[in-house]
C-alpha cells in the first residue's frame, strides 16, 4: 500500500490503524475530514484521531469498511458483530456516519 493511498486512524489508546483511503471513505465523517477544503491537519497528513473510540471498536470499524467495499463490488457476505460490541459499535457508527 502506497503511502498516498492510506490513512491512519488512531484510537483512544493510541493504537494506530492504517487502512486504504478508499476504505476510510466509506465513512462520511472521515470522507469529509479528508476532503474538506479547509486545510485541516487530517487532510494534510492523512491521520485522524478518535479519542472516544477504543481500539477494539475501531478495529471492527475498519473491518466493516473493507467488508462494505467488498459488498458493493458484488461479494455479498455477512458481517458478523459480536453482541458485546454492539452498543459501542452503534454509537461509533453513528458518529462516523457509516
Amino acid at each position: 500500500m502506497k503511502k498516498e493511498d492510506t490513512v491512519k486512524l488512531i484510537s483512544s489508546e493510541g493504537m494506530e490503524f492504517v487502512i486504504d483511503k478508499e476504505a476510510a471513505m466509506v465513512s462520511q465523517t472521515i470522507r469529509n475530514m479528508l476532503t474538506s477544503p479547509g486545510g485541516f491537519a487530517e487532510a494534510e497528513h492523512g491521520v485522524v484521531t478518535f479519542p472516544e473510540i477504543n481500539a477494539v471498536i475501531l478495529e471492527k470499524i475498519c473491518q466493516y469498511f473493507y467488508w462494505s467495499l467488498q459488498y458493493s463490488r458484488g461479494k455479498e457476505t455477512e458481517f458478523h458483530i459480536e453482541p458485546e460490541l454492539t452498543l459501542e459499535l452503534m454509537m461509533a457508527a453513528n458518529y462516523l456516519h457509516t
Partner: protein
Amino acid sequence: MPVLRSREIPPVPPKPPKARSKVDPPATPTQGREQPATRLSSPHSLTPSPKTAGSVSGSAPYSLRRSLRLSSKGSSNVGDQVGLPEVEKCIESLNGDVSKKRKLSVDVDGGFESGGSRVLSLRSGVKVTKRSPLGDGDVNGGGGGDEVVESNTKGKSIAETEYIEKSERDNEKENVNRKRRFSSEEKGKGKLVVETDLESKDETLVNGSVPDVEVPAEEVKSPDEKPSKRSNRGTHRGRMERFRDTARRNASRFAYFNNQEEEEKEEEDNNNLSMEAEREIPSVEEQIEEKVAEDWPGPFSTAMKIIRDRAANLNVRQGSSSTGQVPSLKINWVPQKGKGKDGSKRLAPSLLDLSLRVLVDNADAIASLDHVPDALRHKLCQMLCDSRRMNSSLLDLLLSGYPTEIRLKECSWLTEDQFTECFEKCDTSNLTVLQLDYCGQSLADYNIPSTLARSPISLPALTTLSLTGAYRLSDAGLSVLVSSAPALRSVNLSQCSFLTHGAIEILASSLASVLLELFVDDCQSIDAMLMLPSLEKLEHLEVLSVAGLESVTDKFIKEFISARGDGIKELNLSGCGKLTDSSLKIIAETCSILRALDIGNVPKLTDNSFGHLASGCRSLESLKLCRNTFSDDAIAAFLEMSGEVLKELALNNVGKPYHLQDAQEICCLSLRVLKLFGCTQITDVFLCGHSNAEVEIIGLKLSPLLEHLKAAVESPLQKNTWRASAWPQAKLRFGAGGKAHKAPPHHQEVKAEKEMRLTIKQLLQT
C-alpha cells in the same frame, strides 16, 4: 419553397449524404428536411430539427426555431406565419450557428432509401418526405430525411421544434457513439414515431429513438391536444401550452432509443399516419422532461406519451447533456420492470443498521442505555416495538436517569402495573417529548396523579405529548395531566374515545397561548360544533387534525377557518364525510400559508375543490388524497399550477381509474414522496420513466408492504412528528432505472436533467 429546394439535398434522396451534413454546424439537414417540406401543401411543414450543436445549445436558436416552426405551422395559433423563407433563414442562421445543428431523422431513411421517401406529416398536416439523412457521424443520427410531422393538433409545433432542436443537440453530443451508419435495417425503420395522439395512441408513442445508438432526429408531433385539457388553462395560455406539450412529448422521444424502439416505431408508423422524426437524446430528453415538468400545462396524454416513449426508448445513454458537456456517464436506461435497483452496485447496509439489528436481537442483554443519544434511542425503540421485543425492563432503561425524550410508538404490551411501576420512579423534569401511543391498557385517570402528574410541576419541560388510544382517559384525567404540563405545544389525543369537548376546553383554558398542534382524530365523543369555541381560543394553532370526526361540517369549517384560518399550516380533514366544496373554497381563500392538507375519504368533494386549491393555497407542500372522486384532469391541472412546490403527494385509491397519464403529470420536480396505494393503473412506464430523480414512490404492488414502515424520529415540534408515524414513508425507489442509486451517475443525470430543463424552459419562454 424555392429556397428549400435550392438546398442540395434532394427531396428524396436514396442516400442523403448531405443530410448529415450536420457535420458542419450549420448543417443543412434542415435543408433536406425543408425541401420535402416545400412540397408539402403547407409551407410550414418544416420540421426543423434543431441542429444541436455538439456542445452547446443555445436557447436562442431554439426559440428561433420554434417561431419558425410555429409560423410554419399554419394550423397553430401562431400569429405570424413565417413562410418558408423564414424557415430558410432560420436554417441559414442555424447553419451559421455552430451551436445549432439540425438533426435529421434518419431512420426513416432506411425506408425511404429503399422505397422512396417516407412521408412524414407535419403537424400542420403537411407531409414531408423523409429521407435517410444519416450522414456520417453526425450525431443526428437520422438521415437528413425529411421529417414529416403530421400535426393534427395545433400549436404544438413550437414545442416540437424545441424538442427537435434539443434532440439534435443531444444527438450531437452523442456524436461519437452515434456515428454509426445506419444500417439499412435501421433506415428502413423510418422511425418517427410520432405519436400524434397522445391520448389514444399510447403505444404509438414512439420510441422514436434511433435504433441503437443512432439518434435519429425525430420530429415531435404535437399530439392532438385535448380540448378539454386545454380548457383548463385558458385561452391565453394556449400557445405556451402547446409549446410545452410538444416539448414534452418530444422530450421523451429524444432521450432514449434502441432497437426495440425502432420496431415499435415501425409499428407505430403502421398505426399512425403521421410520423415524426425524433432524435434521441437521452440527456436531452431527460432535461426536456424535467423542464417541461415544471411548467406543465398540457394534456395528460402528452405527459403519458412522453413517459411511454421514454420507457420504450431506454437505451444506453450517452450521457450527453444539452450543453454538450457530456457528463460521460453511461447509464443503462433499460426499463427495469420490477427490477428496481440496478444490480451492479449494491449499497452495503450501514454499520449503524447492522449493529442496531444485532442489538435488537440481543435486547435482553442490554445493560444500560446511558450516553446513547436520543436519536439512537428512538431508533432502537422503534425497532423493538416493531418486533414486539419491547418490555418493561427496557422501558426502565429508557427512563433511567433524566430522560429527555421517550417515544414509544406502540405501548399495547404495557400493563397498568408496569406503567405505574416504571413511571413512579422516573424523573420527568427534563422530559420534553412523551409519546405513549396505544397506551389504553395502561393509562387511566387514577394512575396519572401517581405517575406523570406527581406534582404540579412534574412536567415542566414537556412540549410534545401523545397519548393516542388512551380510551380510559377522561376529561378530568386530562385536566390533571395538563395542569402539570404548562408548556405543551403539541398534543395528540387521537382515538381517546372517552374525551368530550370538555377536554378541548381544558386545553384552551390552560394552553391557549402556547398550543400549536392539536390532534383529535377519531375522538368519537367530541362534537365538533361544541368544541368550536374552545378551538377558536387557541391563538397560535397551526396544525389541526379532526380526521374521522363525522360531526365536522361545512359550518364548522367555515367558522373555524374564519377565526383561525390565517394561521393554519396543516389541516387533516380525512374522513370528514360531510364536507363539500364550499369548505375547500373557504380554506383556499383564508389559509394562505397552508402547507399540508389531507382530504382523503371525503367523497363529496368534486373537481371544483381543486380549482379553489390551485388558486388559493400556493404554498401547499403535501397533499393527501384517498378514495376521492376527483378526475384525473383536475388533479393534473392542479399539479400543473402548484406542482413545483409540492413535495408529497398521496393518491391512494383515487376514485376513477387513475390513468397512467395522470401519473405522468406527477412529475413535479420538488416531489419527494409519492404514495400510490391502490392505484392499479400505474405501470412501469411511469415508474421507469418519470423524470424526478429524487421521488420516492410508495405503495405500488410490487413493493413489500413492510418496507414502508419507518418510524419518524423527529424533533418534538417538527410538524410531521406524529403524522409521519401514521404515514408509511419507506425509502422505496421503484423501478427508476439507475436513478435509484446514489452512484455518481445519478447526480450527473440529475444535473443533466436540470440543464435540459433549463434549456427547455428557455425555449418555451420565447
